[in-house]
């Protein structure tokens, strides 16, 4: 690891196009500004780790066909033919060609278990990770 000591206001440049600015020190926290091209994906480490962990669990769990069939059997949401459920629905028909037609695995659905599609619009359904922050710059 390259270790540099900075005072508030000082910067670090990572070529070709990233600049890190130490903005302020306050209450045991460092406020850091990152200037970089918009396509650079910049995340707090704990958020990145959270996603990494969840992806790994998802990859492991994707062997449990019986659960999927129970969920699928009672999915009440839109089908491919339903007009776009979301404002952002773009060409639902086109999305179908992401999938390969034909061979698939799976076992018969278990009809005794029911599932409702959950709408994100129902506030109680959405787990809140933390209160929204307010501020000028995009800040977390």
């Amino acid at each position, binding site marked *: 690891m390259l270790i540099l000591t900075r005072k508030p206001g000082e910067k670090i440049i990572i070529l070709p196009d990233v600049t890190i600015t130490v903005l302020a020190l306050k209450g045991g926290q460092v406020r850091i500004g990152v200037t970089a091209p918009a396509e650079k994906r910049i995340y707090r480490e704990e958020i990145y780790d959270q996603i990494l962990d*969840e992806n790994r669990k998802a990859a492991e769990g994707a062997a449990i066909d019986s659960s999927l069939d129970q969920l699928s059997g009672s999915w009440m949401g*839109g089908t491919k033919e339903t007009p776009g459920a979301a404002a952002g629905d773009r060409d639902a028909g086109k999305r179908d060609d992401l999938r390969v037609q034909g061979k*698939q*695995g799976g076992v018969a659905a278990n009809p005794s278990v029911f599932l409702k599609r*959950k709408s*994100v619009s129902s506030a109680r359904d959405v787990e809140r990770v933390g209160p929204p922050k307010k501020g000028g710059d995009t800040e977390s």
Partner: protein
Amino acid sequence: MSEELNKQGDVLTFKSTRFGEFTVPVETVITIPSGVIGFPHTTKYVMLDHKHPFSWLHSIEDPNLAFVVVDGFEFGQQFDVKPPVGDKDTELKADDEYAILIIVTVRSDPRLTTANLKAPVFVNMRNRKGVQIIIDDPRYSTRFPLWTEESASSSDKS
């Protein structure tokens, strides 16, 4: 990482520990240049049908690697995420069509199965390139439950 690929003209063959061997048209391959987060070395996938609304995002390089996914548009208007226009992995332009794949964490108890709304995979339909983006927004959880505790008798309410 050994690639179990055998290209013959327009098709390729890959192995799946879950489903056996597949032969698919080459143009169905989805490339995720940076990989799914945590899996940077596997960049090529194919989507396979499962029962609606689930599909498999199946690696064609690792026979054991597959993700259950749901179309992001199933979550309605409140799952309002902006596509990463300008992203280099997907070369996504403002007028490109795109798909959103949400990775599902399946558990042996179906009631605990969840969808990761915080890290959707955007796929540029023009070039079939994808990228997983983290949405740092408190509205969206890595574990959005797909199950709701409602009795069978109320199943016809929406």
